[in-house]
């Protein structure tokens, strides 16, 4: 279908998956309310299933979206394969969340259907955040996503840790949003528009059109993104927020929120500021180096697996920022590939943390993992694969992803960043394998230490899907890589000639 945005109804088509999800979210909300009445009883199990159906429907709508074409390239919503691709990533994360969360919410006595509604609407926010071409709409997408996630973080009202995490995340998130918004204002003032394509035209193919105000605005935008992706030194909310948030939410945040922020980061900077790459490329590369070093070092001393995973997700932000700084089609493709793998392994790892943690997440310290592998082999093997993939071990998707990021960096002559990446990920073996080592080479406190772990069918399905996905992407990464490459082709000629995107 050919969409022409001079006709308003075409926006509805361009927002097809978002519309489906929003409408479905309201449906879920209504069904939930009518089922529960005013007796404040837990939601029915059907709500999770209903939510899942909505996600599948949105995925179908997203597939359809992939067939649409537009007139021109400056509509508010982008109609490109990049958007379709990232939408799938968010839906994947949301789907895994629903699978993983069901039993957890029951055990924590927080079966509120609203949580599923919020996840769906957060996914809408992510899609807009990553798929829009207008800074103002991007900002609203960002807020939509963030507000929903602030609530999800504090959803466990009985847990003071969750409340604290939520407060910290909220205050700092709003703080950084204000910077982002100021950035939008400055860009708007100097480029006289918030549309990315127009901004790119103003900046010009040589970057001479960029005034100081625009540069400062661009930096403030970067601050907003860097905060959301948890780059050092904007990362400090991350460990606390992930640690305090319910484990399924932490997984969702680590995977989807970060993916959305990264996708938007990439889209904004590669569409609007490609000719300023000399400036922001260095900036991003510097932050990436700092992030990789600091996060990996701090992760080595964490005794709490959930917190360790939080630092690991910060470290991964560093790796992804190397791909971003490379700003080539290879970089963007490696970036997309890594997002998928990253989502699988992060949600998977958090799912294991969640079932091992038991009620109230009382067992998140590494000591509780002693002997897990032998007593619960499926969990042990799955977790080992996630950890190996996070570390970048060959035959897992994590290896291919890192390899591709390295390749993108090397192609652009970013040898220093590449070397730091290698060193950092070698260091990361230490803390990932420490968990694996506890699982397989440590005798548990007692022989029945892991008897009480209940793996719900949903969690099992999510784990199996994640394991298969990671191994598949490690051994046969070809097809996804090709799709990723095609999806990022739009950036190759987004702003004409001066783009630093050609490969050597």
């Amino acid at each position, binding site marked *: 279908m050919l969409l022409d945005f001079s006709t308003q109804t075409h926006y509805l088509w361009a927002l097809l998956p978002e519309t489906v999800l929003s409408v479905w979210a309201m449906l879920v909300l209504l069904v939930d309310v009518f089922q529960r009445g005013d007796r404040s009883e837990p939601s029915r199990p059907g709500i999770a299933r209903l939510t899942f159906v909505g996600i599948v429907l949105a995925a179908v709508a997203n597939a359809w979206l992939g067939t649409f074409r537009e007139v021109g390239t400056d509509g508010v919503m982008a109609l490109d394969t990049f958007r379709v691709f990232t939408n799938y990533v968010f839906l994947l994360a949301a789907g895994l969340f629903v699978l993983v969360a069901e039993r957890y919410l029951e055990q924590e006595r927080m079966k509120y259907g609203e949580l599923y509604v919020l996840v769906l609407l957060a996914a809408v926010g992510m899609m807009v955040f990553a798929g829009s071409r207008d800074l103002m709409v991007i900002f609203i997408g960002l807020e939509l996503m963030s507000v929903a996630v602030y609530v999800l973080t504090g959803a466990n009202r009985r847990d003071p840790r969750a409340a604290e995490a939520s407060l*910290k995340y909220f*205050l*700092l998130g709003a*703080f950084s949003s204000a*910077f982002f918004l100021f950035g939008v204002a400055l860009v708007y003032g100097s480029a006289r528009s918030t549309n990315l394509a127009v901004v790119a035209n103003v900046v010009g193919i040589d970057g001479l059109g960029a005034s100081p105000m625009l*540069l*400062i605005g661009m*930096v*403030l935008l*970067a*601050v907003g993104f*860097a905060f959301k992706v948890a780059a050092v*030194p*904007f990362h*400090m*909310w991350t*460990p*606390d927020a992930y640690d305090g948030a319910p484990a399924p939410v932490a997984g969702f945040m680590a995977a989807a929120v970060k993916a959305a922020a990264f996708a938007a980061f990439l889209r904004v900077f590669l569409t609007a500021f490609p000719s300023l790459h000399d400036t922001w490329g*260095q*900036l991003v590369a*510097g*932050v990436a180096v700092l992030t990789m070093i*600091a996060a990996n*070092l*701090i*992760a*080595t*001393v*964490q005794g709490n697996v959930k917190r360790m995973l939080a630092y690991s997700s910060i470290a991964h932000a560093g790796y992804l920022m190397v791909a971003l700084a490379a700003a080539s089609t*290879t970089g963007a493709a490696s970036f997309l590939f890594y997002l998928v793998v990253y989502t699988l392994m992060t949600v998977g790892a958090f799912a294991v943390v969640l079932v091992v943690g038991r009620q109230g997440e009382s067992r998140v310290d590494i000591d509780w993992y002693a002997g897990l592998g032998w007593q619960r082999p499926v969990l042990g093997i799955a977790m080992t694969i996630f950890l190996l993939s996070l570390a970048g*071990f060959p*035959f897992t998707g994590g*290896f*291919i992803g890192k*390899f*591709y990021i*390295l*390749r993108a960096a*090397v*192609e652009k002559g970013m*040898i220093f960043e*590449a*070397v730091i990446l*290698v*060193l950092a990920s*070698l*260091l990361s*073996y*230490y803390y990932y*394998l420490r968990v694996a*080592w506890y699982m*397989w*080479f440590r*005798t548990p406190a007692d022989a029945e230490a892991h008897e009480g772990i209940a793996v719900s069918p949903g969690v099992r399905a999510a784990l199996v899907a994640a394991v298969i996905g990671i191994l598949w992407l490690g*051994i046969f*990464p*070809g097809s996804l*890589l090709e799709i990723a*490459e095609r999806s990022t082709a739009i950036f190759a000629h987004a702003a004409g000639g001066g783009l630093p995107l050609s490969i*050597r």
Partner: protein
Amino acid sequence: MHHFEPTLLGLIVLLPLVGFAINGLTAFLAPERKAIPTVVGPAVLGLAFLIALTNFLRMLGAELHEPYVHSYWSWMPVGNLQIDAALQLDQLSMLMTMIITGVGTLIHVFSVGYMKADAGYARYFAYLNLFVFFMLVLVLGASFPLMFVGWEGVGLCSYLLIGFWFKDRKNADAGKKAFIVNRIGDFGFIVAMMLIFSNLGTLNYVEVFEAAPAAFAYGGGVITAITLFLFLGATGKSAQIPLYVWLPDAMAGPTPVSALIHAATMVTAGVYMIARSSVLFALAPVSQVVVAGVGALTALFAATIGLAQYDIKKVLAYSTVSQLGYMFIGVGVGAFAAGVFHLMTHAFFKALLFLGSGAVIHAMHEAFHHTHKDWDPQDMRNMGGLRKYMPITFATMWIATLAIAGVWPFAGFFSKDEIIWQAAAHAVGPYAGWYKLIWAVALLAAVLTAFYMTRMMVMTFHGENRTGEEERKHLHEVPAVMWVPLAVLAVLSVVGGWVNVPHAVADLPVLGWIPTSEWLHEWLHPITEHADAIMAANLPALAETAPIGGSAAFWAIASFGIAVAVILVASRVVGSRAYRPATEAPEPVGLARLLYNKWYIDEIYDAVVVRPIVGASKALWRFVDQGLIDGTVNGLGHASRALGWVGSRLQTGQLNTYAFAVAIGVLILLGFVAF
């Protein structure tokens, strides 16, 4: 001569993986059913060996110049970096495959007997099969990334197998240490890959080696950096200075594992890598001398440490480090075939030695087990006189000892002699002085090798038995399933060297008996010819005589003579020393005993020559090995944790701190743009 098309190449790699799957499932589902792994574990290896053998025989008949590359699927297909999941069969990978599957089969069979009482039987075979799978990927992969896959995979299996008896905390620590030290080496490997890719735009062997001579200037900075980083990777995996520390500790795993992984196959991966990249190394003379120099230093250093060990497996571990040093001398000086030759013979005799020591430990363990004595079954001071109880093990291990010591006509004579001679012959060109030194060091290390190996054999098998009255009754030879592999390896240790008799030796009256001539050299010629051509074009002709005179033939005879002499001296010296069980005051030797001693001369010799060397090597071991290098490795770990701790303290929990960090970050970024 017909076109060569390998038979079922993929199946060689796949079979061990299938074995892993079956054994792994057994380990989880029915660990008590030992029949399954007993059959499956060795069978998949045996089948793989048969397929490899078929291909080898067919390859002998064919004339294969270009490597055969078969691509299974497109692994990383995007853009200009096209890497396929492809296997490459050529003379080098064929040889490696034969060694891995052949020796591997024997060790699997041996393991059936050795591990039969272990609760983790199925798990053990699963790991072992997985190891072989990754090892085959390592040698058969057609590109650097695939080699890296195998490289990391074998590391993982090694880690799993070292920590196999994980209930013992020390073992798990050793496994962890191995993994961490190897990461340092991996860093080198990855950086080298990055450099190759950024300069050549590809990572497939065929393309890299074709493009390299034109792309890199001889002795240029980039190629030197690439090869040095590759070598850093090799030092990690192949346990060279300074990254050798993990290998002696790795002996915590089951002994057949030490035989297969830490002697015959995995640790030689670094040698394989350099031989595979011979074209790159030939272009970088500085790297070559570094490789050979580090190899020589390691050979000598590890040999001296080997003199002072009492643990039979530690002796063999340091001996392995030392022998790997020899292989690096070989590939370092540019005699790639010589290095690979020693790799092959070493696989035979060192696997035999380890399996033999395994048999000894097995017997000792059983004996102590019967009487519930808590002595260390690996301490040689508790052994002695075992030849009476274990004649087959005794005989086969002596064969291996003669082989490693370099006694004609055993395998090690030919391979080691060739390496030493090649070091001398390559002492030409700008680094001639260094090569001369390396040659001298290699000779010295050979003397020490003969000495410590003889010491080990004498302490274990000769003299009085020190096991104890009651225990002695329970000492007996191992079952056939364990001694048959020993016997097969013993045969290989005898004849293995004859596949490559250098002309200089072949022309000699007695030593050149059964002149098989330089078959291995010719076999590997398609692999090494490019490197040879580069070196021939850039370096003067090889030297005809050793640095202090003497031809190849002279030195062959001389080294044979030296080896025999050292063995005779050492057996008398060591045999005369009264060792006592480890628990019973091992050290004191009074001056008075000297006078009463029958072997007065030997004791003088012992006091003046042997004791200082052994003492020095003990000090060296304490200080350098245990203190300096271990300390550095641990120190790196501690330092990074300390830094991490400092970093984590910034995470105060106070929101203002976090906001302040954000503000500082904003300020830095703004400042970066504003100026």
